[in-house]
């Protein structure tokens, strides 16, 4: 069995559509510096660095060579994890493995993306050159296909979807790092925003952000010493599924990679009733409909009841299980960092350092990562080492 590991510090940039004042490496530096300050550590106390991003968005090859310095990787062990949209959570899981292996005591993980440097839609379209590249309309087109399927499968309504968007952008107002903060957004406005790909409206989709997020993992000894309330990693599970969209029917309704990852992670921690046992969840919601589908896949409710959870306000800030107090990916999406942000936000809730978005008395928190329908990551953090 691996060693006990906790998250003892996190740091984020202020995410927005275009950070003109820093380059990509400096964006990483900003997040890493913030995490060091949060953990009250110096870079000399960090043993290893893991980076995570999706390099073709910025047209880079091996961007960790350039950006590693920003994460303080100079003269340290370092590499980059890249697994599509899950990069940020997969990077965090790798950082956890580094510490849990016993080979490193302290590990800095930084997820980052600077969408404004490149051309995100085109980068996404660079899929199978023989097939998808000539047909697919980036991520949104594939989402739209699945959403049409999902609505038919589960009877989820446009209004329920729009409510998720409203919740996300309002929650984001409590998060100083969030990209889209819309305190007065209404369901009507969401449904009146332009359709990107039927039936998805612009305000139901995630934005493209410039941003970075850093997490510091530490071994038990250091965590106890450095952090008054460490966020212990209790489970970190990845599952992978078929890449051809049409090889898995009812993707959103089934999302078997997320179901399998959750089942395994819940088994490790001994969770039977996630909606009761989790105090908060930070889930990777690339669009509103996915958030509802993930409620079902994560067992927050029975299949077909995701929409009801929204209608009943169960996942609101004051609900039984607040989902994405940060505003989620729908409010902030620097892809390579989006997963890392989920983990950082879940940790912040346990640290009790989440400011205006703090949920009271968080002891058990869930974070998930999602990538191109193929990958799902599930991470469970707890105030108790277990």
């Amino acid at each position: 069995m691996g060693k006990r590991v906790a998250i003892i510090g996190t740091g984020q940039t202020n995410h927005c559509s275009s950070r003109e004042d820093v380059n990509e490496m400096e964006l990483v530096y900003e997040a890493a510096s913030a995490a060091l300050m949060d953990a009250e550590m110096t870079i000399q106390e960090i043993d290893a660095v893991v980076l995570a991003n999706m390099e073709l968005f910025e047209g880079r090859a091996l961007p960790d060579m350039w950006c590693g310095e920003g994460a303080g990787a100079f003269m340290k062990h370092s590499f980059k994890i890249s697994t599509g949209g899950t990069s940020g959570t997969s990077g965090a899981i790798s950082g956890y493995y580094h510490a849990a292996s016993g080979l490193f005591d302290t590990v800095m993980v930084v997820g980052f993306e600077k969408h404004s440097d490149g051309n995100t839609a085109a980068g996404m379209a660079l899929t199978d050159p023989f097939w998808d590249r000539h047909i697919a309309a980036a991520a949104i087109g594939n989402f739209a296909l699945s959403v049409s399927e999902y609505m038919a499968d589960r009877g989820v309504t446009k209004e329920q979807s729009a409510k998720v968007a409203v919740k996300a952008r309002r929650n984001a107002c409590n998060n100083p790092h969030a990209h889209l903060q819309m305190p007065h957004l209404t369901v009507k406005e969401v449904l009146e925003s332009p359709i990107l790909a039927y039936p998805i409206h612009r305000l139901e989709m995630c934005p493209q952000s410039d941003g970075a997020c850093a997490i510091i993992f530490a071994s038990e000894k250091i965590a106890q010493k450095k952090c008054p309330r460490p966020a212990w990693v209790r489970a970190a599970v990845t599952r992978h599924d078929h890449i051809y969209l049409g090889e898995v029917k009812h993707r959103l309704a089934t999302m078997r990679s997320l179901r399998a990852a959750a089942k395994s992670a819940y088994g490790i921690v001994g969770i039977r009733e996630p909606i009761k046992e989790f105090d908060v969840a930070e889930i990777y919601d690339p669009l509103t409909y996915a958030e509802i589908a993930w409620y079902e896949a994560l067992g927050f409710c029975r299949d077909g009841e995701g929409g009801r959870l929204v209608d009943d306000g169960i996942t609101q800030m004051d609900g039984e299980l607040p989902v994405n107090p940060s505003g989620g990916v729908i409010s902030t999406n620097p892809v390579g960092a989006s997963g890392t942000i989920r983990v950082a936000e879940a940790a912040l809730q346990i640290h009790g350092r989440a400011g205006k978005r703090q949920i009271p008395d968080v002891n058990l928190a869930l974070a998930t990562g999602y990538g191109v329908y193929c990958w799902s990551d599930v991470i469970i953090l707890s105030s108790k080492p277990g």
Partner: protein
Amino acid sequence: MNRNLQQEELLRIATQMNLEFRFPAGIHYERFFRELKETGRIMGVRCPECKRVLVPPRPVCGECFVRTGEWVEVGPEGTVIAYTSIYFPFIDGSTGKPRSIPYGAGLIQLDGSFSAINHILEEGDPGKLHIGMRVKAVLKEEREGNIGDILYFKTIEPEE
């Protein structure tokens, strides 16, 4: 953010990525496109274990972790299992030019195939699209042996 810090001018360094690649088709895509070009047939492969017919054809069934087996003709008719109409403008990464919008797209389960394929639908009005509708592949006259040889899928009007 350091927006309050007075900075005379913030620069960007512009560059164009212009790289050429040569993607090997391998025996599966090669046979698929050759059949499409020469005979107009759409082909899949069957997994010898789970018996699923997979389109596009590929060397391995990931579910069973075995080599795929016999070739099977599928379609050209099929059923729409998911659909959309694309309205947002984007740059086509392979041409560097904006793709013309709006257009319809669907997941089409070709008759005889387990897996569905994503492709363009002739009908672009979401009001006229629905799950379960029947469609048929429309091929180019002068085919070149690539996925563009299937122009789009057109709606099969239900018989009166």
